[in-house]
């Protein structure tokens, strides 16, 4: 029964990892940008949520209404300025630039806020309570909520990409941005929209992580970026549903590892990550054209 519990907890935490990963996957799939500042941007989302809640006193669960649009705007602006400028030079430049962005964000947070840990929604009943199935399985409402949000986000993204005008343009630009230009499409604007969407999911990931655990300026690279990478690689680069599969596999592996030995939690996740890299480098869900 303890193993069943581990697997269930792993699946649920996989939803959080999928939220971490889908923005990273989208940015890579569309712009070929490996965004090394991804985790730090999620943490910025968390800090913005802390600030927004402190100022407006809106319920923590509704903070996304403000944080997501703010982050989406930031995403569009960053893409149209810094990231696009680095893309114009070379793909490798984007690695350097996003790495630099990560360093700047992390140290900026340390400098202008502090190194203290923050969390969201302490004392909120929904966030801290849980329900039990049988005697050994306890499910936290929060994890279930995050998992549902992750699935809804992925479904929404899927629908947007396959049905909407801009979704179509995003896929077209991901296929061939020069050909898109010849059809009158300003791919930089489409990139900006894709980045805005990615940053919106990053904001959700930051808020979710803030409710699930604590974050400090270094959490972004320590935890979120690494887990996001692992989930993306396990699931398959550029595949949206792959991020959910990857997140779930990573989560289950970690929970099973923890079941064996508490200190093996992270190790087990990375062993699966390495095994997928070695045996199935395209990921468990092979990329089917972005949708």
């Amino acid at each position: 029964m303890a193993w069943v519990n581990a697997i269930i907890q792993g699946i649920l935490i996989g939803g959080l990892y999928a939220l971490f990963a889908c923005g990273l996957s989208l940015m890579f799939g569309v712009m070929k940008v490996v965004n090394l500042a991804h985790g730090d941007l999620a943490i910025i989302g968390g800090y913005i949520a802390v600030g927004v809640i402190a100022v407006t006193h809106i319920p923590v669960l509704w903070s996304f209404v403000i944080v997501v649009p703010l982050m989406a705007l930031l995403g569009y602006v960053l893409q149209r300025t810094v990231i696009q400028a680095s893309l114009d030079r070379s793909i490798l430049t984007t690695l350097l630039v996003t790495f630099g962005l990560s360093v700047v964000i992390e140290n900026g947070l340390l400098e202008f806020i502090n190194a203290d840990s923050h969390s969201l929604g302490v004392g909120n009943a929904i966030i801290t309570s849980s329900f039990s199935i049988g005697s050994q399985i306890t499910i936290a409402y929060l994890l279930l909520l995050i998992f549902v949000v992750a699935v809804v986000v992925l479904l929404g993204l899927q629908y947007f990409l396959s049905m909407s005008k801009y979704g179509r343009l995003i896929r077209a630009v991901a296929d061939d941005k020069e050909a898109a230009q010849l059809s009158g499409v300003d791919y930089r604007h489409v990139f900006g929209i894709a980045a805005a969407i990615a940053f919106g999911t990053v904001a959700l990931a930051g808020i979710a992580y803030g409710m699930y655990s604590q974050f400090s300026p270094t959490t972004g690279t320590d935890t979120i970026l690494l887990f996001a990478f692992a989930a993306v690689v396990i699931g398959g680069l550029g595949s949206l549903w792959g991020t959910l599969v990857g997140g779930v596999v990573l989560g289950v592996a970690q929970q099973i590892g923890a079941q064996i030995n508490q200190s093996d939690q992270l190790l087990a996740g990375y062993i699966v990550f390495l095994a997928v890299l070695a045996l199935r480098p395209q990921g468990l869900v092979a990329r089917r054209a972005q949708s």
Partner: protein
Amino acid sequence: MSEPKGRGDAWTEERGTSDEGRRRPEAPQRRAGQTERAESTALLEVRDLTVHHGQLRALDHISLRVFPGEVYAIIGANGAGKSTLLRTIAGLHQPTEGSIVYDGKDMTKVRPERRATGGIVMVPEGRRLFGSLTVEENLQVGATYARKGPWTIEHVYELFGWMRDRRTQRTAQLSGGEQQSVAIGRALVANPRVLMLDELSLGLAPVVVQRIYAMLPQILATGLTVLLVEQDVSQALRVASHLQCLLEGHTTLEGRPSDVTPEQVEAAYFGLATAAPGGAGSPSQGGSGGMGLSQGGSGGMGPPGRSSGGVWGGRPPEEIQSRGGLGGVVPPEEMEQPLWPGSTPSSRES
């Protein structure tokens, strides 16, 4: 009988001076036999375009004028700069010199997508479809920022009968000819005024190529102007109303297909004529001189698969020159010095 000099030299002098100077003077061959071209204003004009790929000069002071309703064909061998020319007009390359004027407006600095929405739409070499999108989605992308005009996705389905039934298929699953049709459709739904076709025949079976070219009249009937690049000369000659041959970034021949002989085309295509008076000055003389066979400098370029050896067979260049301009008419004042002093084609025979 004198030689069709004049134009070449005048052109050479004008080149690289003021913008005024770059403007191509009314070429005499237009007055002769091409009055309809001369009287209307060019829809698309390329002036003295030079494009570099790194160190390599891909285009060297190329000029052309495309008039409304024309089918303007640019032919030339591999590496002649044809695709570079189209891509530069589309905005995908920045020229180092020269300008592109469309509908009276200078487009040289305009971004590619703005040129497309303005009405210059290219079907790129190799189709370049959005492979993960369906046929219909490809057309929808093409129509997203379309100008107003007669072409809709529905019209494209009518033009290519098979397409409607297979509109939900990914384009990656289509055959080459089908992909080319979708690529043309994607360009058409943007309602271009100038449709640029880059190597439609590339990688397609001849029968498929003919089928696609057979669509051209229907496309032209909607009032389009076509600027096409073709390696397949016979195909280009069949459809073109005006012809320009490039060789290593220079114009070697220009005129109406009816006014040029196969020999001239062949010579221009392979650079069989020698003669390079003044080295650097000569390249563009062909462009304005009507039919000049410029230096080319491509002695080593063989005519693979073409029976050109016999065509030239010791024929003196004067015979070609004596045709004067393309219309066979060059005002006497233009003819003072030989364009190709004392050169013989035999020295270049392949």
